[in-house]
Every structure is written in structure tokens, then in C-alpha cells.
């Protein structure tokens, strides 16, 4: 059973320039012990979706069910009682920690806020959380300013897991960190998922990190999920031209690096359209090398790819005729194969 079920969520905002739909009918689900990677570029709505799931921004439509309970139907007080089951890790560890609290107070804070346990059991839970994220006992009395960036993010993660959540929502948890610290934090998340059987929604723009951590992946573009499936399906056999472009854009340390960027340039044309005036029909058509009149007229529905009952889904009118070509180094014929 899914521990988190997100169904047809729509989030709209009023901006100075007009109303925008930041999240446009997104559905996803997460099982225990599973990591879903959510990728897409700035402004695609992935962080807004995370906030909607956390019930931090109002939804215009749709539902978020956590362990079977529809979070939108709860009163404020009931929602607060559920919150310890779904927790969030943020991008900027320093900005999300109160500078006047020491490490053990910071990690214990969610327990006090949610009224979980007594003093002794809280102290035990804090010690356990510190051990799980690899924080030495010696830093318990330190202030955030006395910690390294990696330790600060470990505190952020410890705060999120100390309430024993079923779901962890991580919004760009490593993108503000130096490369060697990133590797440490990625390992911490990897270990926690295994040890605590967490369901994890992992939001990041770094596709290599997402592929490393995720069982399944969803690709967002202008508020919609355009492709989803297992990590090896989406990254190994991308069907949507945007997914293909994203993958080709990742600079890799090999001899084909520059050639791959040329593929990316062909798959992602021009600039991101404004959410104030999104394209009709397929959201991606203004940047797509395969777009036809049909793409402007009708919005492509999510269609299953591959075997029946499989997880691979794509929203593209032409996915059947666009030959999938995983942009791997040995497949230098990529560009020819893609020409329809």
C-alpha cells in the first residue's frame, strides 16, 4: 500500500502580473522504503508541489493522503497531530536552524512541539537520531554557527527523522553543499532510507544524484509530470523529448561530453515560456523539435509505455514515433536515430 498518495493536485498563485498555475494536476504515490526522485528545472513547480504535500500552501484541487488520511480534510489541530509522520529537509541547513539553540535542543524541538514522549524518552530519541545521521555526541552542546556545513545539514536531517516519520520530503538537500560534503549527506540519506524504511520524495536538479538515490523518477515541466517510471526506465530509455534533453545536458567526465551537449541543444529549444501564458496543448511544444499542429491543439494525456501494468508513463503525442535512444557514449548514432 502507498504510504503517500497525491492525486490531481493543482496549486495556483496570484502574482503581480496575474494568476499562475504552479502545479497543474499532479498525481504520484510513494511506498514504504521507496525513493521517488522529482526532477525539473527552476520554475517547474517541484518545490511548490513539495509544499502542497506538506500542506504549507493551499491547493485549488486534488488530495494528499498520508497513511490513508486525507490531509486536506483535517482541522488545523488534527493536521498538527499528523505532521510528525511527514517531515521535510531543506536546502539551506543554516537558514533553517535557529542560531540560538544548541544541537540537541534543535533536534529535540519537533518532539516538544508535537508533544511526543517525556523528557527522558525525548533525550533518548535525540541521541538515536544523532547517531543515525552520524553526528558525534561531542557536538550536542554546540550552536549551528560552530558546525560545518555538512554537520548543519545532518542536524536538519536529524530534526526531520526524530519524530519517526513515514515520509521524508527532501527539497534540494545537497545543492548548497560543497562536493565532498554532498557525498556524505547523500550516503546519510541512503542509509536512513534503508534503516528506517522511509518513503522519500527527493527533489533535486542534479540528475546524477537523483539517479543514484531514486527507485523511481518523475520529470516535471511547467507544473506537470511529463514522464515517470523506474529510474532505469526514465534515465535509460527516456521517451519524452524533454527528458532526453535533460539527460543529454548532464556534463559527464568523458570524451563524448561536448557531443552530448549538442544533442541537448537540439532537444530543448529556446527559452522557458512564462507560466502567465503557458502554451496551449502540450506544455513542451514551444521548445520541442518534434512538435506538430496536433501538439498545439490537444494536451497529451498520460500514456503507459511498455508492458501492461508497468510504471513507465509519458505525456507526448509522438512518443511512439520518436525512437528512444539512451544517450550513452557508445551510441554515437543518437542524432540520426532521433530524426523522425
Amino acid at each position, binding site marked *: 500500500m502507498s504510504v503517500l498518495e497525491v492525486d490531481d493536485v493543482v496549486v495556483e498563485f496570484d502574482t503581480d502580473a496575474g494568476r499562475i498555475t504552479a502545479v497543474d494536476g499532479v498525481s504520484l504515490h510513494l511506498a514504504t522504503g521507496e525513493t521517488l526522485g522529482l526532477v525539473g528545472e527552476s520554475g517547474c513547480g517541484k518545490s511548490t508541489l513539495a509544499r502542497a504535500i506538506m500542506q504549507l500552501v493551499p491547493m485549488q484541487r486534488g488530495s494528499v493522503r498520508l497513511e490513508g488520511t486525507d490531509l486536506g480534510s483535517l482541522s488545523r489541530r488534527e493536521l498538527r497531530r499528523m505532521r510528525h509522520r511527514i517531515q521535510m529537509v531543506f536546502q539551506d541547513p543554516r537558514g533553517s536552524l535557529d542560531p540560538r539553540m544548541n544541537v540537541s535542543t534543535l533536534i529535540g524541538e519537533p518532539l516538544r512541539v508535537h508533544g511526543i514522549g517525556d523528557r527522558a524518552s525525548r533525550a533518548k530519541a535525540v541521541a538515536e537520531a544523532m547517531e543515525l545521521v552520524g553526528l558525534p555526541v561531542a557536538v550536542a552542546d554546540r550552536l549551528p554557527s560552530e558546525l560545518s556545513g555538512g554537520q548543519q545539514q545532518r542536524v536538519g536531517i536529524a530534526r526531520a527523522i526524530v519524530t519517526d516519520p513515514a515520509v521524508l520530503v527532501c527539497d534540494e538537500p545537497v545543492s548548497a553543499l560543497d*562536493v565532498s560534503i554532498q*557525498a556524505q549527506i547523500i550516503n546519510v540519506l541512503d542509509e536512513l532510507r534503508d534503516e528506517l524504511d522511509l518513503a522519500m520524495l527527493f527533489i533535486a536538479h542534479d*540528475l*546524477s544524484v537523483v*539517479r543514484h538515490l531514486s527507485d523511481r523518477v518523475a520529470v516535471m515541466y511547467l507544473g506537470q509530470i511529463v514522464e515517470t517510471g523506474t529510474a532505469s526506465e526514465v534515465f535509460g530509455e527516456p521517451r519524452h523529448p524533454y527528458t532526453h534533453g535533460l539527460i543529454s545536458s548532464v556534463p*559527464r567526465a568523458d570524451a563524448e561530453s561536448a557531443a552530448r551537449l549538442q544533442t541537448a541543444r537540439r532537444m530543448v529549444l529556446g527559452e522557458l515560456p512564462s507560466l502567465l501564458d503557458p502554451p496551449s496543448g502540450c506544455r513542451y511544444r514551444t521548445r520541442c523539435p518534434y512538435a506538430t499542429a496536433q501538439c498545439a491543439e490537444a494536451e497529451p494525456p498520460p500514456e503507459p509505455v511498455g508492458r501492461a501494468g508497468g510504471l513507465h508513463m509519458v505525456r507526448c503525442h509522438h512518443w511512439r514515433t520518436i525512437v528512444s535512444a539512451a544517450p550513452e557514449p557508445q551510441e554515437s548514432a543518437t542524432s540520426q536515430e532521433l530524426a523522425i
Partner: protein
Amino acid sequence: MSGMPLLEVEDLHVTFRTASGPVHAVDGVSFTMKPGSSLGVVGESGSGKSVTARALLRLFAITDDVQISGAVHFDGQDLLRIDERRLRDVRGGQIGMIFQDPLTSLNPLMAVGEQIAESLRLHRGMSRSEAAAEAVELLARVGIADPEQRATELPSSFSGGMRQRVMISLAIACRPRLLIADEPTTALDVTVQAEILLLLDELRRSEGMALMLITHDFGVVAATCDDVQVMYAGKLVEKASMAHLFDRANHPYTEGLLRLVPRFEDAHTGRLHPIPGQPPITGGGGSSCAFAPRCSYAVDRCRSEVPPEVAVGPQHLSACWLATDRAKDNTEAGQPWRRAQ
């Protein structure tokens, strides 16, 4: 291509005096660049890679208490010894620079076309109308659509990627012979990054300028640079052609950097391998290998003597006491970072 180097850096030292003592940010760095060549400089935060670039043009804050020594030969003069007025001609003239955040380098209150034109009048002595026309031309060359209209707009009306294009057009306005790009794509989305990297590569070839690209990402270097040098604690620890480095990374720090990031082509294959510990906050200046405390291969000698640069292949240097031994069993198949993790 002429055999004369365009840039020759000799024994560069940069030391900051701070409240908690001196920081040897750059500790005896020497390298050369040929005209039209491309060089990637890779390292963690604090490795000295950005400070090296800033030292070439003495671009430091007034509040920095900084000491620079060595020599930076560029176009027949030592940039460390010429006066401030002549150095200003070089900055933004023969040497262009772009940074991670274009907003901090662009005037927010001035139309982008005017900013480019100002530089053209200053460095290339163009008239007002010539400069205005050339500014539009430059915006078109870096791939900005509708350049006449966009030239009249403020930096704030451009997206992150377009702003970096504006910054690049400003940097190449005076036809520099060297373009220094310090983490130019770190703040950008991946498809925009791809565009900017391709643009830098194309401009390098079409303008015949040399490119020095500073980054923490070997993938970015692979896409844009022929040569690479790796910095640690203010020193160059390895230099090679990028093609050579893929197959024959020699220095344990380079190996560590290559291993610590997940590679896109690998599905989940177990835990990553972070380099234990942290770089020294005081930079270099010690009497041992600065990497030894974090190095799993370190032997006694590494902790008592600074390793010299050793040739381990054609134009391939590694500053490691074990470099020769490592080069011997360092075949492509033996590259630990390539093996399944």
C-alpha cells in the same frame, strides 16, 4: 599555433592576513597557457582555484589584507608589477572575466546595451553610435533573440541564463585574448548550463581566445577544456590533458574527486566514497603533503616532505611521492574511479 605562451604564471603565492593568522590561499603555483588553449581548474571550495584567477588581475576587495608574490607574464608584461592604470586596461580588455553570479558584476540601473557600449568606448575607443551598434551585435552573437530591444533593458529583466549571456557578451566585447570563467554555470539549470558551455566553446574557437574555466565539476571541464589542473590547499597537485586524465588520473586527490560524485551512467551501485576529513583552512605553506591527512595511500614520507611535481606521462604532472609507482599500475582498467563502486 605559436609556441609562445600567452600566459605564464611563475611561483605565484597569495597570502591573506586574517585575524586568526595567515592563510596561504595560493602556495607556489606555476603554469602556462598557449594562445587559444583551454584549461580547466578543478578543486573543492577553498582549494585556491578562484584566488589564483583573481590574483592574475589583482582583483581583491579593498578590505582584503593580501600579499602576492611571483610573476604573471601576459603579453610581454608582468601583471603583478604594472601600475593600476595599465592593469585596468588589461582587465576587461585583453583579459575578460565572468563569474558565477552575473548580477553582482552588472550594474542593475543601467541598460545592458549601454554597459557593453561603455566598455567598448573605454577599451576600444569607439564613438557613441559605433559602440551602441556593436553592443547589439555582441548580444546577437551570444544568442540573445531580439537584441535591439533587449539592449535597452535592465539586467533584472533577463533570466539567469540570459543574464550570463549578457555577462559573456560584456566579457568578450573587447576581444580578449584570455577569458577567465569562474564557476560560470554553477547557479544555472542543467539545460541552460549546456547552452552556456557550448557558447563558451564556440566563442573560444571563433574568437581565437584562450579559456580558463574554474569549476568543481570534471564533467564541465570535459565539455569545454583540453587541459586540466587540479588544485588542493593552494597547490597544483595534478596537470594533464583532459583526455589523458580520464584514463590515467594519478594523484590520490584527483582520484578522490572523481570517485566522490555519483556518475550519471551508473545506476545505484552502493554508497559513495566521500574523501574523509576537510581541506586545511589555512591553505598551504606546510612542510608535508597537504593532502596526506586525508589520503588513504599516505606513507611516512608524505607527512614529512612536500612532494615535487613528477612527470608521469606526456604533459602529465603529479605532485605525489607515490606518483611513479601509481603511474606504473595505472592502466585504464586499473582506474579505481571507473571500476564498479
